[in-house]
């Protein structure tokens, strides 16, 4: 942190004056005025050559850290999306592109306070996002059945009872379940 601040101040003169000498004929009155005035504040974040400030660095680092599981999940799905039929030599179906794309898009809605997703596919070609938090297991499954079908599941830890909902991404009941039971981001109107 300290070294960053030092670097910033060392750079400032060069960045602001360009290393040019001020003319001696600037005038004593002007010189006196400058000597009695505080250094003008420069909003370094707006100067074209400035480095990111400390807070900015922290924010990007934080964002990078919480986006990492999401990006990791996306990378997994993109890898699986390339699988062809019988990819496992045991008759697995090729992944459904509509389902993969839906899952990829849904991953982008997740925020730092949501559980880390495990992105995968089924051997029938569905895209699956699994969420394991301390209280329950939840999953969102996308499949192409003459259009995108979303399956939602939640089962509290240690319970035999589960909750389930299935339907088109446009169904109001789907978003209600996602919001009220899964506590995850809802699907926007243009999701399909």
């Amino acid at each position, binding site marked *: 942190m300290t070294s960053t601040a030092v670097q910033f101040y060392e750079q400032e003169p060069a960045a602001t004056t360009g290393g040019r000498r001020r003319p001696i004929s600037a005038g004593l009155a002007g010189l006196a005025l400058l000597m009695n005035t505080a250094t003008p504040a420069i909003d370094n974040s707006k100067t074209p050559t400035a480095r990111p400030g400390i807070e900015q660095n922290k924010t990007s680092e934080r964002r990078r850290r919480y986006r990492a599981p999401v990006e*990791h999940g996306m990378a997994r799905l993109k890898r699986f999306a390339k699988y062809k039929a019988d*990819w496992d030599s045991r008759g697995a179906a090729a992944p459904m592109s509509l389902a993969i794309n839906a899952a990829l898009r849904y991953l982008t809605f997740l925020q730092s306070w949501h559980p880390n997703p495990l992105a995968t596919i089924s051997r029938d070609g569905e895209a699956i996002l*699994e969420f394991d938090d301390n209280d329950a297991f939840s999953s969102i499954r996308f499949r192409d059945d003459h259009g995108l079908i979303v399956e939602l599941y939640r*089962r509290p830890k240690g319970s035999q009872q*589960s909750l389930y909902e*299935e339907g088109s991404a446009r169904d109001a009941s789907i978003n209600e379940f996602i919001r009220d039971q899964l506590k995850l981001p809802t699907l926007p109107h243009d999701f399909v």
Partner: protein
Amino acid sequence: MTSCELCRALFNDSNQKNLAAVAEQQFPNCHCEQFSVGEGSPSRVHDDEILYRMLTDPIDLDQDTGQIAREAFAQAYKDGLSIVRERATDAEMEAVVREVLSVKPNKERRTIRAIFEFRCLTIRDERCVFQGSQHKAFCVYDQTVSRILEPNEPPVATHGTILSRRLFEPPTTKRQFQSDCNDTLHRIITARSVDVTTFRNGLVATLNARSLAGEFIRAV
């Protein structure tokens, strides 16, 4: 045919699809567990036996995070979830693993990425509620399977299978039941993992290396 012979006929029919559903329909309540059903099997699977489940496909686990997908146990309500019995000799273990690692030409080569061990009784003790009372949720059989890499050799004797009994009723749907089944097996089976590199003195690790070298590619 006796009940035992009928059970053996079902479990040795390599063309049988949806074995979990068919077994529950023809032999409900894990009826065939009382017999040894696998060709060449040394015995039925006893309650106190230790069993292994191996995972090979990247879709089933994330090695970066250590997460295991619930979906990895989906075969239990379809054609059966393959298991290996601890009583397998190293030669039998090698034969099973070679089969598991076998791939068709030009397909991605496989490796065993995770091994879990569990006691048979923990599966047999699992209960589900159906028509107002508690029932066994899963059956464990000593089903052996034909070899793909060496089709002329007899089936590996110490292979087994877990089948879900598929007991569910409205308002539970089939898909909800399947997710319940995956979640239950995930809880039981993944509780104890075994180090792949040291398992059986490095036997599986060696077979993984041989698989990556292209040794277990099927003829067709």
